[in-house]
């Protein structure tokens, strides 16, 4: 167990903490401190010193005591608590000890009552003493830490919200009520206010917005809710209400319909919409609403409904006695005066008379707040009216079933419906009407929809407060929604509350076994209680007792979590992480990424809360180091699974917990840098890599140094570590000595890429096969995918015939591809081109359709360039030059954005070839001119032989079209020489084909035909059928005319 004061561990059964000496609470008692959303009211007398000078001390004392009484009465009448008296000031709190969903509204009502009560008292004072009292009031809402131990005399509220409330009061003028922005938001549209200039408050950098309360409108749903937006969905429920009314009329029997649903789910709106649709000739209507508290009679709701029933009715035919009785009691003040039986009898007489002409519908809203008297009366009334066409519609939250399980039972003709949340489509329709003009970005809109979980009230409130600059709908909960849910949680008994809190620590979903171990023991009654109150719900129940539960809404988990003091959260996260580790059993290295990330995340939060509270002792230090190590391990594992975004998140958090001077920092920073580079954040990645290299060198961490140098050489050739292959060769002995398969795989790939650069695809193939094996051993998907992708390139460009290469690609895919998105991407792209070489376009397109979305979903920035590039290659081979052109232009644009030159040279050359096919040499020239000085100097210093061959070939065709015949011929020959340095039949074939085209343009038909036939031989060797076709066609065109 842990001490709730200092969070230090304590032996089980200890009565006092050995660290701080505090008494240790028994396990089942919830901590005595909570975070709560409360509304604080400050009220102070204005000019009391002047008053003191005028009055006899005894008179002054009696006046002041009376003033205190009046203020206390006003506070208590609305469910608030007077926290303390400070001089002549009264401080009251709404939300302690009991939370109400409308605490902010109650506080404002109390504030208005305070001024009202004082005004009345002043009339007395003016007559008796010739004086007048004046007060000024400040009201503010916010989160406080409250001691909620019922045995304590004071709630001991503290926090910023209290200070601001006091400042608001001090800034108010006599008779004025100033309120804070959070109170305005929490009270909703009923509070009529006027903004005044923001206040400068000591200790706060920003001025505090302030508002003057002008008026508080009735808590009518018409005012508080958005009934102006169109009604959405609920066709089934409307039809059911119609059906019940029809039955009532046809059978001429009294029916009761209960409409149950959570707060804000749309009960009132449903029934109002239904009422509006009713023909007045069909039924007579009366509606009323129960209040959570107040000074109205207990039957007010029924009185309202009856009053409206009678409003436009000729009462001449009714029993005068019954009407008089009701007018003197129920209709006058909502009381059952002179007695309950007489009221029921009179009411049934009146309703029966009305029901003779047409059916009567009585709607009572918010019946969860109905008194026992009202519910008893309704029961009895239904008995009296059993043989009359009367439909009683009761709207209630599910709490009604809790507080009065017998409601509606034991009666015939009762129907209950439970309103569920709106569907996603319906929510979207509703949301579209909540704002006048909205942008059509998907992200924030969808997040709000998801968070609101189909509850229209939550949807309204969340959309109103959607202003997070990050463009997400995940900002703080609006106080209205928070208060609604917090009051539901607050009504739990301590054992249920503890269980809910612990579950909130565990997550949105939790196992009963986990919760039982975490809580020490699991009281199944509490679990059932939470389920019955719809706070949690079982999942995956295959018969028997449910083993897994989840919060019935993410918002409930959020509110329960935020209700715990940070110190309590810290202690519980740490305890739960320890429990997870002990229950996971496996050594850390064998944990799944999710398991490792989960327990690491709990430790991290435990540390962060302690840091926020400045509780940084030796234990916290230990917590930090362990959390960083576990997060780092989970991040590396995520990287191994090629989940870049997850890896970035985990590694960033791990690195943030450590300092560069700590030994563990450099290897984690180096891995984070790799993730950043892969995500396209080059500058951040290179900076972090350089820092990691320095830190590792300082710490004598040779392997990290070798990795960092290799990565720097790959990503920043100007960094001074030579080529990637150089760095790979330098690192190789270090990796071999340490038997580091990851290092070996990486070094292998870089060495193979150098071979590929020099056109030695056959040799590269052998190196890559070894690299794949090492990557498999390291369980590193990016390296495995990289090596396989490189292998795919050699299969495409190299000497192996296309049909055999396709088979090998497919075998590699079958072996390494399943469940590996990256491998699917890196192998399917070259496979698509190989298939296209053989004219198997449909299969090629299928490969690309598989790879494209996967590439994007993995978050690789380069996907924007290489996907259109491969797609264009396939399109060009398929003869769709227009489409290829579009794609290549898109690739070029994307490449410019990324700032890389390697891929855009390839795209430019491919595009130039398409333009040349149309004779557009001018733009082709512009595109390729800047790439390398192909017609001056030695291009091989800059370009690989295959690229140089490509470049020379293109330039030769340009020059031929320009009419520079001699230069064209020389360039074509150079292309052939460069291609000859490679083992690539494609490069050689293309060079020969370029030469054939140039010779044909120069008019040398025989030589052109020879070159075309040479090209055909290379293409035949590769079994590049499209190339064979092109070469044959050219040979025929160039041959002697028949």
């Amino acid at each position: 167990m842990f001490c709730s004061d200092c969070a230090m561990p304590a032996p089980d059964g200890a009565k006092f903490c050995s660290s701080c000496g505090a008494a240790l609470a028994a396990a089942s008692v919830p901590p005595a401190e909570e975070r709560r959303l409360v509304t604080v009211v400050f009220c102070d007398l204005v000019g009391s010193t002047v008053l003191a000078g005028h009055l006899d001390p005894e008179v002054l004392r009696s006046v002041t005591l009376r003033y205190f009484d009046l203020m206390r009465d006003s506070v208590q009448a609305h469910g608030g608590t007077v926290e303390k008296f400070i001089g002549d000031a009264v401080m009251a709190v709404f939300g302690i000890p009991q939370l109400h969903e409308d605490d902010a509204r109650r506080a404002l009502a109390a504030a208005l009552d305070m001024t009202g009560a004082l005004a009345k008292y002043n009339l007395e004072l003016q007559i008796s003493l010739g004086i007048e009292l004046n007060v000024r009031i400040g009201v503010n809402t916010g989160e406080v830490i409250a001691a909620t131990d019922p045995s304590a005399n004071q709630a001991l509220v503290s926090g910023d919200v209290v200070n601001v409330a006091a400042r608001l009061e001090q800034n108010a003028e006599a008779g004025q009520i100033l309120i804070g922005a959070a109170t305005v938001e929490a009270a909703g549209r009923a509070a009529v206010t006027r903004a005044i200039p923001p206040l400068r408050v000591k200790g706060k950098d920003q001025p505090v917005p302030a508002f003057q309360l002008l008026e508080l409108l009735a808590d009518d749903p018409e005012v508080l809710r958005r009934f102006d937006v169109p009604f959405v969905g609920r066709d089934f429920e409307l039809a059911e209400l119609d059906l019940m009314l029809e039955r009532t009329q046809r059978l001429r029997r009294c029916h009761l319909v209960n409409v149950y649903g959570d707060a804000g789910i749309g009960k009132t709106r449903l029934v109002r919409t239904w009422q509006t649709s009713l023909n007045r000739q069909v039924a007579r209507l009366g509606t009323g609403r129960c209040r959570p508290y107040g000074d109205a009679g207990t039957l007010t709701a029924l009185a309202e409904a009856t009053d409206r029933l009678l409003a436009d009715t000729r009462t001449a035919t009714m029993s005068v006695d019954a009407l008089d009785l009701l007018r003197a009691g129920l209709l006058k003040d909502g009381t059952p005066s002179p007695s309950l039986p007489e009221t029921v009898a009179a009411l049934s007489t009146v309703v029966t008379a009305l029901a003779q002409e047409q059916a009567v519908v009585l709607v009572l809203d918010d019946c969860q707040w109905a008194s026992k008297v009202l519910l008893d009366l309704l029961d009895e009334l239904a008995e009296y009216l059993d043989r009359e066409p009367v439909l009683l519609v009761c709207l209630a939250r599910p709490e009604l079933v809790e507080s009065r399980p017998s409601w509606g039972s034991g009666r015939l003709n009762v129907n209950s419906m439970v309103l569920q949340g709106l569907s996603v489509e319906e929510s979207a329709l509703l949301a579209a009407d909540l704002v006048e003009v909205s942008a059509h970005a998907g992200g924030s809109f969808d997040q709000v929809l998801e968070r609101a979980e189909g509850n229209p009230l939550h949807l309204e409130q969340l959309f109103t407060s959607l202003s997070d600059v990050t463009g997400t709908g995940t900002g703080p909960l609006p106080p209205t929604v928070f208060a609604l849910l917090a009051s539901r949680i607050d009504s739990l008994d301590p054992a249920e509350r503890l269980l809910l809190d612990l579950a909130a620590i565990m997550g949105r979903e939790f196992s009963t076994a986990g919760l039982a171990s975490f809580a020490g023991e699991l009281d199944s009654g509490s679990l059932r209680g939470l389920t019955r109150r719809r706070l949690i719900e079982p999942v995956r129940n295959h018969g028997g007792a449910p083993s897994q539960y989840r919060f019935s809404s993410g918002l409930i988990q959020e509110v329960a979590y935020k209700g715990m003091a940070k110190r309590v959260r810290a202690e519980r996260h740490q305890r739960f992480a320890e429990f997870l580790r002990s229950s996971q059993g496996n050594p850390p290295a064998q944990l799944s990424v999710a398991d490792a990330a989960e327990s690491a995340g709990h430790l991290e939060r435990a540390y962060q809360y302690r840091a926020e509270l400045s509780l940084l002792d030796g234990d916290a230090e230990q917590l930090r180091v362990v959390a960083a190590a576990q997060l780092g391990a989970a991040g590396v594992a995520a990287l191994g699974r090629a989940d870049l975004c997850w890896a970035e998140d985990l590694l960033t958090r791990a690195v943030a917990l450590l300092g560069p001077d700590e030994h563990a920092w450099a290897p984690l920073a180096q891995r984070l840098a790799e993730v950043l580079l892969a995500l396209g954040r080059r500058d951040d990645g290179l900076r972090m890599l350089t820092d990691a290299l320095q830190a590792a060198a300082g710490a004598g961490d040779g392997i990290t140094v070798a990795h960092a140098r290799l990565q720097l050489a790959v990503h920043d050739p100007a960094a001074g570590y030579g080529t990637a292959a150089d760095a790979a060769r330098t690192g190789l002995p270090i990796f071999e000595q340490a038997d580091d398969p990851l290092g070996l795989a990486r070094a292998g790939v870089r060495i193979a890429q150098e071979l590929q650069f020099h056109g030695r695809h056959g040799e590269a193939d052998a190196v890559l096969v070894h690299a794949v094996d090492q990557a498999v051993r390291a369980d590193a998907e990016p390296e495995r995918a990289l090596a396989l992708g490189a292998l795919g390139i050699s299969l495409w460009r190299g000497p192996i015939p296309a049909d055999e290469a396709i088979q090998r690609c497919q075998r590699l895919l079958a072996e390494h591809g399943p469940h590996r998105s990256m491998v699917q991407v890196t192998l399917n792209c070259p496979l698509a081109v190989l298939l296209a070489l053989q004219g198997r376009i449909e299969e090629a397109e299928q490969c690309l359709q598989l790879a494209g979305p996967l590439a994007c979903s993995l978050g690789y920035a380069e996907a924007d360039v290489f996907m259109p590039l491969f797609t264009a290659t396939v399109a060009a081979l398929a003869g769709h030059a227009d489409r290829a052109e579009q794609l290549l232009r898109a690739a070029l644009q994307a490449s410019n954005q990324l700032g890389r030159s390697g891929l855009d040279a390839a795209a430019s050359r491919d595009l130039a070839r398409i333009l040349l096919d149309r004779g557009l040499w001018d733009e082709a020239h512009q595109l390729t001119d800047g790439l390398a000085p192909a017609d001056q100097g030695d291009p091989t210093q800059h370009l690989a032989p295959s690229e140089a061959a490509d470049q020379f070939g293109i330039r030769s065709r340009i020059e031929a079209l320009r009419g520079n015949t001699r230069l064209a011929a020389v360039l074509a020959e150079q292309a052939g020489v460069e291609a000859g340095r490679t083992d690539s039949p494609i490069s050689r074939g293309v060079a020969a084909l370029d030469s054939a085209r140039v010779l044909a343009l120069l008019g040398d038909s025989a030589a052109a035909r020879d070159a075309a036939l040479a090209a055909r031989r290379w293409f035949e060797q590769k079994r590049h059928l499209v190339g064979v076709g092109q070469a044959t066609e050219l040979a025929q065109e160039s041959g002697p005319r028949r």
Partner: protein
Amino acid sequence: MTSTTVPLRRAGAQKLTELSWGLRGCGPQDIPVQAAGVFRTAVTPELALGSSTGHGVRVCVVDSGIEADHPAVGALSGCYRVDGEDLAVVETDPGDSCGHGTACASIIRQAAPDCELYSVQVLGSSFSGTGNVLLAGLRWAVQQRFDVINMSLSTTRPEFVQALHEMADDAFFARSVIVAAAHNSRVESFPWRFSSVISVGSHQQEDPALILYNPRPPVEFFAQGQNVRVGWLNGSTIRTTGNSFATPRITGLCTRILAKHPQLTVFELKSVLYQIAANVGAASATENEV
């Protein structure tokens, strides 16, 4: 563009009956369109666009503003905002209240690098605004006779529909093309719902160059709007989704076409878009003869 028509697949035929607002579960192959007889000599992308980069075309983004000096947006030719009090349009420093306008501008810049970009801010920090401010901003943009007006937003409120409709018609006749995003949900909203504007939804292909025509409007064109990399606040870029981001893709395309063919009217421009859409093929001779 596509010179052959693709046979209608059975699965596609099933989906086609539901098609209207979006392309959920459908690809370009599911909505082949045979161009009517008069369009037999198809306008090719080459003819429509050539190497146009949008040079000289004035594009106005009616949105949340545009961030200053954003690397993905570059230079701005003018920034304005609607004053919330008197609804006057006043010149202002560049700035974006939530990132949305910058995102749209970055796509336009990518699609038509040399166009002149203007901004009029009508949305606030919560991706939303009021109808009166929108009307004031759009009225001003139409009066300025911008060549292209990008509107990745809409209103569902009936009280603004009449005025919006009149402005959309004015723009149509004044050769200002309004390119407007369809609602992401199946919701009727405006101005995209008017036929005098060019309405845009998202297709599901990861292909910025792919433009599709919807044979079953109200939404007329589809462009890439899923998982798009866009400029965002503080010089950053993010990946995001929504019809908001397909719309500037079509705006960019219109801009490029108008740079090459400045004399086009809005209805001519819309016809050109139709003809260069990837799923629209020239009708076969036999069918035209029937």
